[in-house]
């Protein structure tokens, strides 16, 4: 974990209001696991006082580059979308604990399920799994075709199926519809996306190893402010809670209570 002034090396709109941002700096080499995130200062203005948590979408250790993909929605992310090449970004990270890639043996099959801007961390995860000799299958859900991204990139790593709410791309419906209908066989499932999606996955696919990446509003993002806690499912757990920022954002299904 460090605070790095990273240089913006590239920024582009990869889908409607969805931006791919590449930054360069020492921080990139510290990333331990896919699923970790960074806490980004959107502006040197008290207008957007708090940092924004953004998942690490990809890491290039050689070029010391880190890729993020985010939706420009509120003040902070809109400002981030205005970043220009050469600009400096103040980035805190890498933060949290990511997806356990060692949990899937080489030759095994992993299903990666993403929804909306929950998709980005799965890309680095998929690359790492593939490198370990794991077969990867991707099921990606988006609201519609306009906001979908990275289909090509994921396809290069393994079979990739899309679901869109309005049917404008892939199958009409939710990721769970896709998984059901195609009767995908797998050894482990990794997921990141909206809580309703995670809940549906937990309800239906807890029979095999399932890891979920959560989201919560954050203050410090390093475990010091208790903004992001969630309760454990086990009432006898010693602490009774987990911090999404420092214990997570990835948890094994059944470890914490999902609430929206």
């Amino acid at each position, binding site marked *: 974990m460090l*605070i790095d002034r990273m240089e913006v090396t590239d920024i582009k709109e990869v889908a409607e209001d969805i931006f791919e941002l590449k930054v360069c700096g020492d921080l990139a080499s510290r990333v331990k696991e896919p699923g970790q995130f960074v806490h980004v200062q959107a502006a040197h203005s*008290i207008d957007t*006082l*708090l940092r924004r948590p953004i998942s690490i979408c990809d890491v290039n250790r050689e070029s010391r580059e880190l890729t993020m993909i985010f939706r420009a929605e509120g003040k902070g992310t809109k400002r981030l979308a205005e970043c220009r090449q050469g600009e400096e970004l103040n980035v805190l990270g890498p933060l949290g604990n990511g997806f356990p890639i060692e949990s899937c043996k080489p030759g095994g099959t992993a299903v990666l399920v993403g929804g909306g801007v929950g998709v980005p961390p799965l890309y680095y995860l998929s690359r790492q799994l593939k490198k370990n000799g794991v077969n990867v299958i991707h099921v990606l859900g988006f609201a519609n075709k306009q906001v979908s991204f990275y289909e090509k990139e994921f396809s290069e790593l393994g079979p990739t199926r899309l679901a869109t709410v309005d049917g404008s791309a892939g199958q009409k419906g939710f990721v769970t519809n896709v998984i059901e209908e195609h009767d995908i066989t797998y050894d482990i499932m990794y997921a990141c996306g909206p809580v309703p999606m995670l809940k549906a996955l937990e309800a239906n696919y807890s029979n095999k190893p399932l890891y979920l990446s959560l989201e919560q509003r*954050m*203050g410090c993002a390093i*475990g*010091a402010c208790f*903004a*992001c806690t969630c309760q454990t499912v086990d009432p006898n757990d010693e602490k009774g809670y987990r911090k999404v920022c420092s214990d997570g954002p990835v948890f094994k299904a059944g470890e914490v209570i999902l609430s929206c």
Partner: protein
Amino acid sequence: MLNIALPGLNMKNPVMPASGCFAFGKEYGELYDLNCLGAIAIKAATKETRFGNPTPRVAETPGGMLNAIGLQNPGVEKIINEELKWLESFDTPILANIAGKETNDYVYTAEQLSKVPNVGALELNISCPNVKEGGITFGTVPEIAAELTEKVKAVSTVPVYVKLSPNVSDIVGMAKAVEEAGADGLSMINTLMGMRIDLKTQAPVLANKMGGLSGPAIKPVAIRMVYEVSQHVTIPIIGMGGIQDAEDVIEFFLAGASAVAVGTANFVDPLVCPKIIEDLPALLEKMNVSHIDELKGRSWGACQKTSSSR
């Protein structure tokens, strides 16, 4: 030029992280050496373990933030055995923040904490609702605050600071009441009560609905209150509310503070405390001051300078 001696707190410099924004130091300790801090105000301790409020617990506001953490903490016993034990390795005095639902909670927690060797002083967070008095906060009625202060003083073996809530009509009255009741110092200010409503959900952003407003937005209110109170009490004031840089620290000293605490700014820049400590000496030199203590209360003291314009 920065060392400050306050009741119970022998500080290398006047800068400490504010309670609740720094947990018990471990996390920030991974980013820098905690020995550089003047003191550490640890997260509020309560008698029992508390999980706190449902999430979302924080929200951003213009120039500030709201929080409704709900005093999540492992309880005083664990804090003593684990967190304070860990903090022993640092040469930095601890200001132990205490909260409770009724007077007995405070008294119990205070008594336990005051016995811990590295706890230099206690800080009573009186912004909590008092269940016995029907939910009004200890911090809005001078008599109740004074009574609490007295009872805690009676059991504490270390100095006691009372942390005042700004959500009152008469902050000077509150300050004088707790001073008379024996407080050794004041911490001010705690957060202002605020709310933000999400246009999409049409409901408050925080699950708890209301929360405490902190950050730069509240600095003018904090400065005003320190300015008013410091002229009416003789005990020292730890000033806080929106401090972001060394200039802000000086502003609090000029207003009448004897030390400062930095809260929200830690989230903006995790290195803010060491940075402020590093920046202070040069700023003091520029102001022709040989010790920061000299600036205390200058804005209302005798030696005011006159302004000049273009």
